């Protein structure tokens, strides 16, 4: 687990990172568990493939942060499959 001495730069940093991940979860109801469940499945596939602990850690973070770039895009981009978006919105996604 992360260093619990609350005044260390590391604990503060890890806390902010956790806040970022949690806030990603509130961005859209049905996406609440999507990133985490992608991370959960990715880690198991990575273990099956024999990838390193570091690779697995990177995968879990990539899964929860992968859609961070969607924040601020039109909300219909979250709700529709890419193919059904108008061309302008699709280019932004």
């Amino acid at each position, binding site marked *: 687990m*992360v260093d619990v001495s609350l005044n260390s730069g590391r604990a503060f940093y890890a806390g902010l990172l*956790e806040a970022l*991940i949690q*806030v990603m979860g509130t961005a859209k109801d*049905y996406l609440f568990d999507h990133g985490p469940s992608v991370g959960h499945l990715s880690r*198991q*596939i990575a273990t099956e493939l024999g990838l390193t602990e570091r690779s697995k850690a990177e995968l879990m973070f990539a899964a929860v942060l*992968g859609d961070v*770039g969607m924040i601020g895009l039109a909300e219909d981009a979250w709700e529709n499959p890419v193919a059904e978006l108008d061309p302008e919105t699709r280019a932004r996604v």
Partner: protein
Amino acid sequence: MHPLRSETAVLAIPHLGGVALLVCYHHEWWDGSGYPDGLSGHEIPIGARVLRLADTVAALGENRPNRPARSAEEIREVVVDGYAVEFGPDVTDAYLGLADRRRIADYYAPTFYRGLMSAAEELLPPEISPLSGDQLLEILSALIDAKDPYTAGHSRRVAILSVATAHRMGLDDDMLRTVWAAAYLHDLGKLSVPLRVLAKNGPLTEDDLHAVQLHASVGVSILESIPSVRHLSPGSRYHHAGTGAATLRGSGATTSRCSRSCSR
């Protein structure tokens, strides 16, 4: 192109360089038909292909506004079809092996989040400079501001004004640091307000107003759940106190008054 936007955001987060690479390439396909760079085969990092498959499987298993969740058989078909097209043989075989032996553990949020914080332990160096924390604050505020085009740069301006005010009030260095970070995050909960409300042209409905007023408490419940940033929460909770969103009381009053008077 959201993978590139996400990559830019993740690249800016100190110590997560390897993560940014995976984020960038998680929509590349084995046959070269993906985006953003059209990489193919082993040019695509294996981790990015694992993400592609896991993203597909998880998404198909979820109910979405425009379609219901797919059955396990339908999901398996999609994965098999993607063998030499989307995911590549190694990753597809690994997943199908797990699925066919029924070895895939059910998702359980608390376990996952504990694992995630252990993963942070794996990725973060033993010592982290306070500057990394500042950089992360800057990124979080950029995301908050990205959600609302009318307030670009708002969080940083509030932080600068709040610290100047707090300094003038003669507060000590620890308090100045708290005011600084709390002001950066005072609109954290805004990320949970639907864009259609934030960008609405015209009067807000009752529901819209409720969503907006809720934002301060969403931000605060996130901050309060995390021990190492809990001290920032009063500034976020009470920054609209007096306008009806929350009641002002307790030790956060000073932090909160600093960010409130500067966020108008």
